[in-house]
């Protein structure tokens, strides 16, 4: 169930260039069931900025009623958010959207998790949930440069982790696809979140397999009412059938929407 609550900041710290890790606490956390969902945050108090900011959930601690987000302070809203300190409150609407299906991979099977940039965070909770039930995970994470990289250690603790940087400052030089081409495992499920060209490459590479893609789009309401974040559905492409990224997604099985 979607709730609206003032959550308290437990911690906020910068973990890479322009990248922040923010942990909040409150009752709303008990509604978070699935990795890959997101929350809609008010970053200011008045009308500036006016709209909420959609930010993905990177980990959930139901016992402590805490959840963590990793976001890039890029525009006005996220810059304001990054200036908030411990004990301050943040207005949260969520959890929103449909996340990754953990059940697509069974115990003993292998899952491939592919993330690009600020698309990496939701894969962390997914990886935790998969490994919890005995799924072997392989992570392929892409960043622009070493300074923008985060959570390599945390992912490594859960499973094999490959890093690619566009400028070659760390790991494989190039894109995540350059790493994937060399992987020889048999994957029961492939999960991905990141820029659309990357998602498209993943979809093309693993045709006919169980692939789940998390999309990003500018949003208005975040709950499906405003039709801002609509994309074409694959059935009758270019036609009138559609999906709303916020409420039908953000995670879709590959092939369901036009990338």
């Amino acid at each position, binding site marked *: *169930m*979607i709730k*609206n609550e003032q959550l308290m900041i437990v911690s906020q710290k910068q973990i890479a260039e322009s990248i922040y890790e923010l942990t909040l606490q409150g009752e709303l956390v008990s509604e978070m069931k699935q990795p890959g969902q997101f929350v809609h945050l*008010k970053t200011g108090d008045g*009308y*500036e*900025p*006016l*709209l*909420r900011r959609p930010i993905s959930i990177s980990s959930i601690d139901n016992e402590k009623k805490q959840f963590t987000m990793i976001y890039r302070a890029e525009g006005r809203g996220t810059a304001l958010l990054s200036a908030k300190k411990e004990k301050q409150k943040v207005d949260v*609407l969520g959890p929103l959207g449909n996340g990754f299906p953990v059940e697509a991979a069974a115990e003993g099977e292998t899952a491939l998790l592919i993330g690009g940039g600020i698309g990496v965070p939701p894969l962390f909770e997914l990886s935790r949930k998969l490994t919890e039930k005995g799924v072997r995970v392989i992570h392929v994470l892409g960043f622009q440069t070493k300074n923008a990289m985060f959570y390599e250690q945390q992912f490594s603790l859960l499973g094999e982790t490959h890093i690619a940087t566009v400028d070659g400052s760390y790991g494989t030089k190039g894109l995540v696809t350059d790493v994937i081409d060399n992987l020889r495992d048999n994957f029961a499920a492939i999960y991905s979140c990141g820029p659309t060209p990357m998602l498209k490459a993943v979809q093309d590479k693993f045709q006919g397999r169980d692939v789940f893609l998390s999309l990003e*789009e*500018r*949003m*208005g*309401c*975040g*709950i*499906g*009412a*405003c*039709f*801002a*974040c*609509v*994309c*074409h559905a694959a059935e009758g492409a270019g*036609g*009138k059938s*559609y999906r709303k990224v916020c*409420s039908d997604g953000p995670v879709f099985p590959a092939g369901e929407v036009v990338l």
Partner: protein
Amino acid sequence: MNTLSINLPGLDLKNPIMPASGCFGFGREYSQFYDLSSLGAIMIKATTAEPRFGNPTPRVAETSAGMLNAIGLQNPGLEKVLEEELTWLEQFDVPIIANVAGSCEEDYVHVAREISKAPNVHALELNISCPNVKEGGIAFGTIPEVAREVTRKVKQVSDVPVYVKLSPNVSSIVEIAKAVESGGADGITMINTLLGMRIDLRTGKPVLANTTGGLSGPAIKPVALRMVYEVNQHISIPIIGMGGISTAEDAMEFIYAGASAVAVGTANFVDPFVCPKIIDELPGLLQKIGAAHISECIGRSWKQNEAIANHRA
């Protein structure tokens, strides 16, 4: 006693607060937050004869205290709205105002005739900000004669009262208001969004895929208020006011300006509970200003002036 009830053509409103068209879908999303029966009315998303996908994305861009949108009237089309959305809304005790859009007079007439037959549709809201494809794409709402004509034709076929939603993107909104009144409109809703744009500093190109979009939110409130204030003094049909309303105080300003009821738009995106919050706060606000009933406040901004002027004369 209900201090908030308002009677308008076709509409017995429990209170003067309703979500604005395009900011509430067909109500489904907001029904998970509160009982839609608590609303004065619901203005549903614009309906066209055929399904429309709308514009490419990005469809929204944020601006100072506002937002731009260029959704492009995405909707499932008349048939599905009648069969799926309006029937679903029947479970709530709330009058529906159906927003009707089209690209030629025939479209408006067809949609109005059919949708006005739905049992829970108590009024129509004509969206005359749409481009008229037969007149080179000039919006119906920008030329008085064209606005009057489409109003007159829709009035002939509608089973329920017809409200016309005015575009602020005109040189004289009073002239358009007078024209639709003479075309037989039962009421006016105003204002629609103000045309605007934003440019991406990195690319130097417009942010919206559609280049331009409609500005809404608190940023447009002063403009909307001024227009309601002016129009109310030149027509005798009621106004449902809108444009940046986010609080009970905002709503009261519009009522003072001359609106008989108000619609809340963009604020629903920021706070899904904004409509019931305003409804809860209005009685206290009435008490604070010393009014026994909301209707006493309608047009107080200029009616007082007039009363004073008459007294002096």
